[in-house]
Each structure stands twice: as C-alpha cells, then as structure tokens.
C-alpha cells in the first residue's frame, strides 16, 4: 500500500474514533463502518496503536480497538514556575 493511501485511511480511521470516542470495534466491524478492506485496515490499526492513539484489547484478528484519549493536564500554571 502506498504511503499516501496509508495516510489517508489512517486519518479516516482517526477521525472516526475522534468523533465516536466511546466506540469499541474489531477489525471486521471497522472495515464495514469505514468501507475499507481488512488488508488496508490492518497496517493502519497497527500504526495508530503504535502511536497510542488507539488501544488494542485482545490479540490477533479478534482484537477490539478503542480510542485512547490523550493525556490532559487540565489547568497548568506555567509562567510562575519558570
């Protein structure tokens, strides 16, 4: 798969989880939801998991994926501590 295609599907997948942050879905479910083949999705999910954007629950093709919220440090006072 070309880098352009990988990037495009990765962004699609990311936007899907961003807009549905409570979704838990496996590869097959995501393939149906996004209209992408399993072959296309596998490397994308691998990359998003590597970046900690998605959390993988389980192993292999049976694994489920959910959005992993970034670390939030609410209100931080920066300037007084400098």
């Amino acid at each position, binding site marked *: 798969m*070309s*880098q*352009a*295609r990988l*990037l*495009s599907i*990765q*962004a699609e997948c*990311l*936007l899907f989880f*961003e*807009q549905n942050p409570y979704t838990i879905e496996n590869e097959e479910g995501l393939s149906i939801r996004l209209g992408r083949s399993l072959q296309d999705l596998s490397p994308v999910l691998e990359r998003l998991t590597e*970046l*900690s*954007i998605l959390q993988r629950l389980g192993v292999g093709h049976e694994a489920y994926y959910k959005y992993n*919220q*970034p*670390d*939030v*440090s*609410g*209100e*931080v*006072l*920066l*300037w*007084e*501590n*400098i």
Partner: protein
Amino acid sequence: MNQSSSSTHQPGNSTRIYTNLLELFVDFEGGIDRILQLYTEVMPDIAFAGFAKKAEGEQLRIEHVDGECGPSLRGLTFSIGEGYLGQVALTETDTHWHCLTHDPRLRLFTSRDMTPKHLYGYSVRVHDELIGVLFCGSTIEEPDHHEVMQFGRMIAHLWGGWLTKQYLLDELDLQRSRLTILIEVAKVLETVRDLRRVMFLLVDMTLNLIPDARAALTMVSKPQEPGMVELVTRGFAKEHADGYSKYLAHKYWRHEQPTPPIGEGYADDATYLDYALTVQGEVVGVLGVELGATERYPSGSRELLATLAYMGSAAVKKHHSSQAERMHKQVSLLHELLQQWDHSQYKRTRDSSRIAEEYGKYMQWDHARIQVVTGACKLLEYELRLLKEADIPQEILRLIGETRSMPSMGVGDSSYTYDAKLVYLIARYAEHRTLQLGCVQSSDVCVTDFRSFLDYYERKQTEIRITVEEEQAAQQLMSVDLDEVSRVAALSPREREVLQLIAAGKNNREIAQALYISENTVKNHITSIFNKTGVSDRIQLMAKVIYKH
C-alpha cells in the same frame, strides 16, 4: 590496471538496441531484472551486469544481477568508498577500469571466484540523490569499451529518470492525500465546540500527518489568567511534557531564547518542531511535536505543522468568542433578574456597568477585560454562592470576591488588584456620584487613572446633557412655529404632517414612505402647502416657518 572516466562521446551503433531499451522504460515491465537481462543480451562482451542498492547507513547491497556468473554476487554488501564499486558510490561518477589484475579492490568479485578483466560502474540517482550503483564486467581481453560504457550510462540515466518520475508521482499523491486530510480536519474543527476536542484533534492529527512524529503536545492559554494553560499531550512521559511545555512557554509567551529541550527527561535522539497558535497577532497556544533524530526536518513537516496551527488558531478564536458571548448572556440575564425585586440596586449596578464600559474604552482595554469588569459591576450585589451555582466565569467571581473583601480605604492597598479597586471605586461613585475623600487624596495608580477618567466622563456627560436640552428646545420651538404657520394657512391635518416632515429635512420619497402614500400624492400636498402659504419652494417655506413672514 588502468582507469579512465568516460567523458568522450561516441554515437551508438545500434538504433534497434536503443529502441528496445527505451521501450522497456515506457511501462517498465519486468523491472530492473529485465533491463539487466537486455544489457547482457545486447552486449555480448559483457559477462555480468548488476545493481547494488543503497541500504541503511553507508552500505550498498547487490540486489539484482544477470549473467552466467552473476547470481553468486546477489546479497553481497560493501561500503561507500570500498573497492571499485564503492568508489563509484563515493564519487558518483560513471567510471570504467580495464586490464584488471589481482587487486584487493576486486575482493567483492574474487570472493566469489570471479576475475573480471574490465569493470564498469554508473551511479543511479533519484531526485539528485544516489540510490545505488549499476555495474557490469567483462572477462574478455578487449571489449568495445565505448559501446558498453554508452549503453550502461544510458541505462543508469533512464532508470534514474524513471525512478525520479515515480518518486514525484508518489510525492504528488502524498501531497494530495495530505491536502484532503487537512480539508477534513478543517471541516471537523468548524463544527467542534469543545476546546479539549479541538486540542485532541490537533495532537492526533500532528502525529498522523507529520512524518517521523513520535509525540505531540498542544497547549492553549486561558483568557484573563496569565500563565495558566490547558495542556494536552500524547506520547510524552510526564516529566518530559512538563519540561517541554515550560520551554515553549519561555519561547512563545516570554519571548526568550530558552535552552533547547534536550537533557534531563528528553530523549537524546529527538528533534523538536513547534508553532504558535495566534489570535490577532497574540499567542494563545502552541503546537509542538517530537521527531526522531534527524539533521533536517522531514519534507513538508514545517508546512503541515504551520497549517494545523493556523487551523487550531481559528478554532481557539471561535471558542473564545462563543465563551465570551455565553458569559455575557448569562451575566445579563442575572442582572435583568435583579430588576424584578430591587429596582434601585438594578439601576445602580446598571450605571456602574455603563461607567465600567466607558472606562474600559477610555483606557483602550481589550473586549474580554471590559466584559469581566462590567460583569463584576452588574453582579456585585449577588451572593457569591448563587453566582457559583449559576456557572458564572471564575474571573468574574474572583473579582467580585476580592472587591467585597476590600475595606473602605482599601483602594490604597497594593495587595488588591487594579480591577478590584476599579470595581470598588465605580460602585461607590455610582452610589454617591462623587469620590470619597480618601480616594481623592490617594496616589494609587488605579485611583489616579479613575480620577482622570472622571474628569473626562463628567465633562462628556455635561456636553451630552446640554446637547440633548438644546435639541429638545429647538424641536419645541420648531413645533410651535409649525403650528402657527399651519393655523394661519389653514393647512389640512395631512398637509401639516407633510410640513413637519419637510421641516425634518425629508425628501419626497422619504415623506411618501413615512406616510404610506405615493410620491405624486406628496407632490400634490406640497403644491397645496405652497399655494396656501404663498411660497414657491421649500426654502421660502422654511424661511416662513422660522421668520414668520
């Protein structure tokens, strides 16, 4: 052994061969293996031909070979500068060596029991960067050097050109994808109202779009709370994120040149790239990314981060305005409620907020600060507990709390903020219409500013009052004069209305619109008025109204 660089040019001796070669590059069917095969087929003097591809570091690896003795070379590696082929990679010059004897620089070949008498090497470049070495060798005594050299050079250049084309097509495809993604991100950011979701999207898209990104961070400052930021990170260890965010705060809000964020808590093999989020030239946040070790930033990374930062800036701006609007509505609603049960308090706080607004404009404050101070003036009489329940912004609550805790002579106390002193002064002034004695004598900056404002404000109020009174008097006078003219000329009620509008400076169309009649009817009324008053135009008519003759 002799070495010579083939700088002389001789025309090719076989058009057919070159035509076949060019055809191979049209669709590149069979790839480099087919091209090497053609090379050995059409050049009978050649015993083998191959391609060594540049791998990680300074190594090259022979991946494709053709010719009877070729396969044994496949998989061998050598460094740039090592042996004959390494020299081609180092100098990037097409070269051939002939009359070779036992030479340590032939070790690559002799290790596979090959002893070429002549060796030819060509650099293959993509986008001006070496990607490998094309080579061939002859075992006969006197091959046609020119023919072999010309043909090899043509293959190397055609192949380099073909790969460059592929590279550019891939790059174009990648840029199109990035553009499409950015459009999608812009669409989503347009609809997202929650600031945190905006920040999540910025961090995640930075990781997704920037090549080699390992961790990303975004922070957005809180309006009216200097030094306070919302921080969202992904991929950073906590102490690393703390250090990096402080570094960015130094850089963008303090405009200092901080030490690069390398050292304790940072990976040694990392580089950083960051961009400010700005609203009307003011830094409101930062978007930063950690990349792997690199001497130069990956292609397009700066532009992509800048684009994401600009999109983030627009989203933050929208968020701040809608928050300010929401806050303003909430404050106004509570203030209006005050009117229901204590009209005098309502009136006093309304006057206070008007003075605060005038003061803010006089001092050229930004809109957000004016809203906080006017909000505090409006809600000063409310219980703080109730205001907290009503979800009034912290900045207003803090200001009200501080103002309330101020003793009667607290305006001279430097432990209170400027804004709290101001709200206190305005509230006292709205109640007594004068400054208290202690305030008149104080040298506090806020009191001094307020005194000079009051000079301006009271003068302006007097001017406005005089202007209003003059206008009312003039209208009254004019009304009396119109009545007099109408009575003497026996104008009908409709003609009197038309006369009033003429006196107000309206033209025929405006009079027609005001009275819901046609312009022709207006003209008829005006002609009738002229006849009855004995004048021939509007100027004479007005003169008659004013001078009564």
